[in-house]
C-alpha cells in the first residue's frame, strides 16, 4: 500500500500548498520533538502526597500506608481479610523480595482468567489526577492491572509527582525508549453506559487498593 502512502502525503502537501519543507523549518520541528515542553499545567497545591491521596479517594481507590517495604505483605493480608478474599494471588516479580507468611499462595508472573487478586508495583503516581503509573515489562506484566477483581498496587512515596509531564521526563531520562505500555490507572473500572448511571467494575478491576510505602531509603 505504499501507493496509498505516496498519494496521501502528496494530497497533504498539495492541500498545504507546498512541496517538502525547507531545511530550517525541519530543524525547528526536530528540535521541538527532542525538547518537549510542558504546556499550561493545573495547579497542584500543597504536599503532592496528600494531594494524590485525596484524589485517589475521590476516585474510589482505598489506601493503606506502611512504614517500610517489608511491611507490604502484612498490609496485603489485612486487605484480603477485611474483604473476605482468598489468600491466593499473583505478585509481580518486581516484588519478589517480599517475604510471605505460610498459608498464602503466591505465584509470580502474568495473571490468567481465574486469578482474583494481583499485587503489583507502580512506577510512579500523579497527584493532579490521582493516577497510578504502571509500566509493562517482565517484572510488572500488564495483565495484573486489568484481569483480577482486586488490584493491589504498591507505591513508593518518593515516586509521587505533581503532573504526568514529570513521568514522561523521568521515563526519557531513566529508560530512553518507552516500554510497550504505560497504564495510567485512575481508580476501578467504571461505566455510565446504562442510563448514564455510574457503575464500578465493568471490565477491569472492581477495586483498586494502594499500599503507600513511606520509607525514603532502599
Amino acid at each position, binding site marked *: 500500500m505504499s501507493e*496509498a*502512502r505516496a*498519494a*496521501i*502525503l502528496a*494530497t*497533504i502537501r498539495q*492541500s*498545504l*500548498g507546498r512541496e517538502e*519543507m525547507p531545511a530550517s*523549518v*525541519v530543524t525547528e*520541528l526536530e528540535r521541538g*520533538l527532542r525538547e*518537549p515542553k*510542558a*504546556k*499550561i499545567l*493545573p*495547579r497542584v497545591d500543597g504536599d503532592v502526597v496528600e494531594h494524590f491521596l485525596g484524589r485517589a479517594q475521590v*476516585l474510589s481507590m482505598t489506601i493503606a500506608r506502611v512504614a517500610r517495604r517489608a511491611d507490604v505483605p502484612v498490609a496485603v493480608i489485612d486487605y484480603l481479610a477485611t474483604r473476605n478474599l482468598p489468600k491466593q494471588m499473583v505478585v509481580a516479580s518486581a516484588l519478589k523480595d517480599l517475604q510471605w507468611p505460610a498459608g498464602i499462595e503466591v505465584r509470580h508472573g*502474568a495473571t490468567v*482468567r481465574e486469578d482474583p487478586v494481583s499485587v503489583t508495583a507502580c512506577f510512579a503516581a500523579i497527584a*493532579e*489526577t490521582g*493516577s497510578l503509573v504502571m509500566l*509493562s*515489562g*517482565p517484572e510488572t*506484566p*500488564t*495483565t495484573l492491572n*486489568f484481569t483480577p477483581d482486586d488490584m493491589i498496587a504498591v507505591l513508593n512515596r518518593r515516586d509521587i509527582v505533581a503532573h*504526568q*509531564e514529570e513521568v*514522561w521526563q523521568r521515563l526519557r531520562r531513566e529508560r530512553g*525508549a*518507552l*516500554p*510497550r*505500555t*504505560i*497504564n*495510567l*490507572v*485512575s*481508580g476501578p*473500572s467504571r*461505566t*455510565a*453506559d*446504562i*442510563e*448514564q448511571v455510574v*457503575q464500578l*467494575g*465493568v*471490565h*477491569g478491576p472492581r477495586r483498586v487498593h494502594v499500599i503507600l510505602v513511606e520509607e525514603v531509603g532502599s
Partner: protein
Amino acid sequence: MHSAAGTFKQRASIALKDVTLQASLGKLTREGLVVRRAKAVSEFPEFEALREEGRRIKDHVLAHLDFYLERYEAEVKRAGGQVHWARDAEEARAIVVGLCRAANAKTVARGKSMVGEEIGVADALEEAGNHVVETDLGEYIIQLAHERPSHIIVPAVHKTRAQVADLFKSAHLELGIDGARDSIASLVDEARRVLREQFFRADVGITGANFLIAESGSHIIVTNEGNGDLTSTLPRVHIVTAGIERVVPTLEDASALLRLLARSATGQPTETYTTVTTGPRRAGDLDGPSEYHVVLVDNGRSKMLGGEFRPMLRCIRCGACMNHCPVYASIGGHAYGWVYPGPMGAVLTPLIVGLDKNRDLPNACTLNGRCEDVCPVRIPLPDLLRKIRNLQFERGFAPPALRWGLKAWAFVVQRPRLYHALTPIGARLLALLGGRRGRIASLPLAGGWTQVRDLPAPQGRTFMAIWKDRDRASQ
C-alpha cells in the same frame, strides 16, 4: 459505513415522538454530561487558556502534517510495529480484513472507535466470516440491538435498563447465562461475565486511538471501562485504526489535549484509564500482542486540510458540541443518519459522505453558537456550517424551491426601487390572507412552517411607510 442521512426529516420527526429517547436526552443535558462538564471546567481556572493552547497544538500539527506522519511512521517501525495507509474507507476495510485473515482470526474484539464506525470495519469483518465482539458496554448493547451509536461517548444513551435487560435475555440464552437483570449493577455484571470470555478467546483486538505520538510512535487510548486495554493486551494481534489527523508531536502535547478531552467529554479531570502503547510485546514480556499494526485512514481528511474546513480536523471527538446542541438534545444521534451526530457530525458528514447526499444536516442548526463556545479546540462550528450551506447552494444541491426563492429575493433586494414598490403589495396581500385573526394557516411554499403553527400576518403596511408617516407627523 453506509450513510442514510438523506431522510433526516423523517428520522427527526420519529425521534421527537420517542418518549424514552426524549427522557434520556433530557437527562443528558439537564443533569448528565452537560452539568458534569460545567463543574469540571469551573474547578479548572486554566481551562480557557488551555483551550487556546489546544487549538494552537492542533493547528501546528495540521500545518506540518506530512512531517509528523512520516516521523510517527518511522518510530512505529522502530518499535517493531507496522503502519498501513488507507486512502478511503474501502482500502481501510480491506487492510483490516486482510490482517485478520493473515492472523487466522475467528473472534475479533473491538474497542469503541469512531473511525472504525466511519470505515465500517465491523460489518466488513462479519462479512468475511469473523465473529466480531464490541467490548465497550454501550457499543455491545447497540451491537445486540443491531443499531448504530447515537452518541460518540455514550453510544447507547437512548436505551433504558429494561431494553438492555431484554437484549441480554435473548442474546445470552444460548450462552447459558441467566441473571437477575433487575438493576443496572446486575446488567453490568452480566456483561462483564459474557465479555470476559470473549476477551480471552479473541485472536485479534481492534481499537482506535485518541492520539498518535510522533516523538515515540505510540498511540494513546482513554477509556473508563478498561475494555480498550483488555482488547489491546490479551489478543495475539492488535490493530489500531486512526484518522491521519490524530497525530501530535510529543507526549506533552497529548497531556495538554487529554486535560481538555476528559473534562469536555465526561466532566472528569481524567478518564479511568489512559494508556500509552508503543509497538508489540518486547523480549521477555509475559503478555501483550506479538503483532502491532496501525491503519492510518485518510478518507477525505487530506483534502479537507486544503480548504476552509481545515479547522474541523482539530476535532478531538469529545462530544461536547452535541451535548450542548438544542437540535441534538431534541432529536438524538440517530436522526443524523451516519456515525457522527450533532454539530461536528453536521459538518463532517457532508464533507466525508458528500454535499449532495446530506442536504438537510447543515441546515438543522439554529446557529446559536453554543457548540463553538464549548469546543475544547475552538472549532468555529456555526461558521463551518454556514460555509457548507453556501457550498450546497453554489453547487446546486439546495432544494429548487429554496434556490429559486433566494434568487428571486436577491434580484428584488438588490433593486431598492423595485423592492419598495413590491413590499407594500406583498404586505397587503398577506394581511388579506390573514383575515380578521391576523394569522395565516396555510401558505404555498411555506408548508414546513404552517403545518405546525400559524404564520402571523403583517398588519398591511410596511415599516418604511410607517416611518415616513411618523417623520411627517413630527415635522
